[in-house]
Each structure stands twice: as structure tokens, then as C-alpha cells.
């Protein structure tokens, strides 16, 4: 059974590579700013978007992109209203996302399509979506490269960066938009339930090996590509859902890497 004989698999692998390239760009900042829960909360709003898309007959990729961006802005509004309880705003958004997704899912006729978004589906990606995803990923990579040094300054110390004259508000806005975009695209391939793992695990693995910010990014991308492509191929041959295999491969690799850090010390 040759994996490359199947068009849907070639599409899935291509999207896997694109998501694998893009996720660590966002993941590194998410991990280092201790914002892992934000990723999870926004991921759940994408599921509500999927339900809305399936009910209204819109491409779920588009509707989840819209709800992810709305979620990102809602977090920002709530954080300003509750400055001392940042985690509360994240929990509120997560509840809203799950609540909406749960309620709206009852009105989705094609439940198989909806559940495919929980753990991802490798057969679900159309040629048009591959084209759209490719363009969006290219934009995210270019924007990230353009703002690389500002994102570094903001990630290292937001207050310090602000006082030094970095436009932290603008950089943060761009970053949060990239977060929403990345999550809504990745939801299609690996499913919403493990989206935050996709952001976090490659970076967590890279942190075991690297010393500098740049090398952490490079290692994160390599790990991310390995998890995505490896997980997708594995899911194809064992007939499992891609979300599960990707995340299991990532967790097991991370655990295998743990002794290396200890040895380096």
C-alpha cells in the first residue's frame, strides 16, 4: 500500500508540512509567555466555528477562522476588564467555545463531518482548501519573519520591550491574529482537541536540546515536521485518526528526550 498513490494522502501530507512549519512560530511564543491555555481556549472556539459552518453550509475552514479571530479579540477584551485574573478570561472563552460547539453540534446534520474535526481527518481536505491553506501559511511565515525581532523582544519581557520603545500593542495584535489563523487551519488536519499540543510539544521537545532562541525555533520546526508527517503516515498505515497518532508520537518523543537534558547538565 503506497501512501503516494492516494491523492488525499498527498494533500494531507502537504498540509501537514505547512502546519508543521507554521505551528512552532506561534508555539514558541505561547510556551515562553506561559500562555499555553490561551491556545487551548482559542482552539475550542474553532470547534464552535466548525459547527456554525456546517449548519450554515459555509466551508468550516472559513467559519472556524472567523470564530478563532473573534475568540482572540474576546480574550483581549476580557483581560483588560479583568487585569488581575487573566486565567479567568481564558476559562470564560473556553467555556463559551465548548458550550457553543456542544449546543450547535445538535443541529449539525452530518455528525461524521463534525466529529472529524475533533481528532482531525486526513481525507477531509479538498484541493481548494490546500490552495487556501498554502497561501495563508505563506503569509504567516512572511509576517513572522518581518516581526521576528519584535516578537522576540515581546516574548522575552513585554514590559521591558514596551518601555524600550517596541510597539508591543501592534506586535501582540499581529501575533494573536496569527495564532487564530494557525489554529483554525490546523483544526482541519489534526482536530481541535489536540491543537494546543501541536503548538506546545515541538517547542517543549526543542527546549531539551537548544540554548539560543534561534536554535530553539529551528529545532521546534524540525520536531513539528517530524510529528506531523510521521503521525500522518502512521495514521494512514494503522487506520487511526491522525490527531491521536500525531500527539502520541510527539509525547513519546518528548519523554524519550527528557534524559538528554539531564545528561547535558
Amino acid at each position, binding site marked *: 500500500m503506497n501512501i503516494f498513490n492516494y491523492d488525499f494522502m498527498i494533500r494531507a501530507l502537504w498540509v501537514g508540512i505547512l502546519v508543521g512549519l507554521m505551528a512552532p512560530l506561534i508555539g514558541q511564543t505561547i510556551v515562553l509567555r506561559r500562555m499555553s491555555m490561551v491556545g487551548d481556549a482559542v482552539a475550542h472556539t474553532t470547534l464552535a466555528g466548525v459547527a456554525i459552518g456546517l449548519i450554515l453550509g459555509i466551508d468550516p475552514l472559513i467559519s472556524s477562522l472567523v470564530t478563532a479571530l473573534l475568540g482572540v479579540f474576546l480574550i483581549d477584551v476580557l483581560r483588560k476588564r479583568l487585569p488581575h485574573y487573566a486565567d479567568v478570561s481564558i476559562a470564560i472563552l473556553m467555556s463559551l467555545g465548548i458550550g457553543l460547539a456542544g449546543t450547535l453540534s445538535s443541529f449539525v446534520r452530518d455528525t461524521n463531518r463534525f466529529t472529524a474535526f475533533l481528532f482531525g481527518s486526513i481525507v477531509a481536505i479538498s484541493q481548494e482548501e490546500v490552495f487556501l491553506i498554502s497561501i495563508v501559511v505563506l503569509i504567516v511565515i512572511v509576517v513572522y519573519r*518581518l*516581526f521576528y525581532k519584535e516578537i*522576540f523582544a515581546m516574548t*522575552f519581557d513585554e514590559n521591558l520591550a514596551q518601555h*524600550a520603545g517596541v*510597539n508591543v500593542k501592534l506586535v501582540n495584535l499581529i501575533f494573536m491574529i496569527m495564532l487564530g489563523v494557525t489554529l483554525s487551519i490546523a483544526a482541519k488536519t489534526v482536530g481541535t482537541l489536540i491543537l494546543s499540543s501541536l503548538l506546545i510539544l515541538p517547542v517543549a521537545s526543542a527546549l531539551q536540546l537548544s540554548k*539560543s*532562541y534561534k*536554535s530553539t525555533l529551528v529545532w521546534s520546526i524540525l520536531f513539528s515536521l517530524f510529528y506531523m508527517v510521521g503521525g500522518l503516515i502512521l495514521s494512514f498505515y494503522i487506520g487511526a485518526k491522525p490527531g491521536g497518532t500525531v500527539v502520541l508520537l510527539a509525547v513519546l518523543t518528548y519523554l524519550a528526550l527528557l534524559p538528554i537534558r539531564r545528561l547535558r547538565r
Partner: protein
Amino acid sequence: MTILNAKHLSYAYPGKTLFKNFTCEVKKGEWVTFIGNNGTGKTTLLKVLAGVIETQEGTVSLIDPLTKVQLKPTERVYVGQHEFSQHDGFPATALEIVVSAYTPLLGLFKNPKAHQIESAKAMLKKMGLESYIHKQLSELSGGQRQRVFIAKALCIQPKVLFLDEPSSALDANFTLELFRLLKSFQEEGLTILMITHDLALAQSVSDRIFCLEEVDVLQLDAPSIQEELAHRHTHLGETHEHL
């Protein structure tokens, strides 16, 4: 040639006034030091002067006396006290931290140039960190980290430098080295406002010393510095005897 002008500054937390009606002018190239016991509001005052936090009452202006233009954030740099564990686990090398000082100067979409990276390395060398340039910040000691942040501040050649206890984590040898270096920058026109607990050190480098007491900020004259030094010396002797 006034570069910093603070007028009628007051700051209070609920139930405690830190300072009240503090006014002071700092000239270009001057070295002003603030001393005082813990909790008297030295850090808050320095942050207010540096523009890190907003003042509750009064005004602070930082204007270049030659160009009459307000100082940009990169021209008035604040180096705070860095808690030892604050950046633990952050994967960045000393060089990456220092080079990031150029970020606001370069503006959007531009990368640091080769000569800027070289200046950053040179500044780390001056700080005695030659063999730590590519080490991760988490692997450095508290004193070494402090030197990284001072290198970061100095490499972009600010006009006013605010230092909150720059020598608190440094050993005696390097403290001397650092203050020699800072003195050479001062001679080239750098204005320095600093907090320290070391009055003898403050006396040897500063043009003026202010002491924060209760709600007042008093400028110390030479006799009162001597008196304070003598008092501290006696007090220290008594503490040693007790121990």
C-alpha cells in the same frame, strides 16, 4: 544644560506615602544617586523619573538640552533589578539579549547589522563576559545576568541611564571595574541616575546624593554624607560585635 526636570512629584500607595513634592533638575553628564532604607520608595522614584511608571502627581520631562527635543525611549534606558529566577528557562543567549536592544532603533522589518552585532559582543567583553557570549541566560549567575542587562543598556549609547542597584549582585572587583566603565561613559556626556545601598561607593562616583526618608527626598551635603558614613560604620561595628 538641564536634561531631566522633575517637578512636585508625589507617589503614594494606599496607607503609605512614598515621597511628596519632590523637585529636582539633573544636568547633562551629571551622576545623581539615591540612597535610603528599604521600602522608602527609591525604585518607585527612579521608575517615575525614567518614565517606566506614571507619576501620580507632578511632571517629569526628559529633554535633550542641545536639540530641545524630548528623549526617545532608546535615549533614556532603565535597568531594573532583575530577580535571579525571572528569566529562568528562557532559551536566549547573552548575545541575543544584548542585540535585542537595537530592535526599537532599527524599526520594523529591519535586521540588526553586522557592526551592531559586533558592538554588542564588544560590550559583553567589556563587561567581562567574553566566554559567556553564547551561553544561555539561565546558565549565568545573578551578577553575570546583571552585567548582560547593563551591556544591553550601554550598547545603544543612551543619553540618560537609570540604574537600580547595579552592583547588588556583583563582586567587589567587578563593581570597581563597572563603575570605572560607567565613569568613562559619563565623561563622554552620559547622565546617570542610580540607586545604591553602598554610600561609600555613591560618594566616590556621584555628583549629588539624595536620601529618601519618610516622605521627603533630601539632598545630602558633604558633611552629612560623612556623618552618615560614620554612623553606618559604627552601626556595622555594633552588628559585627553582636554576631
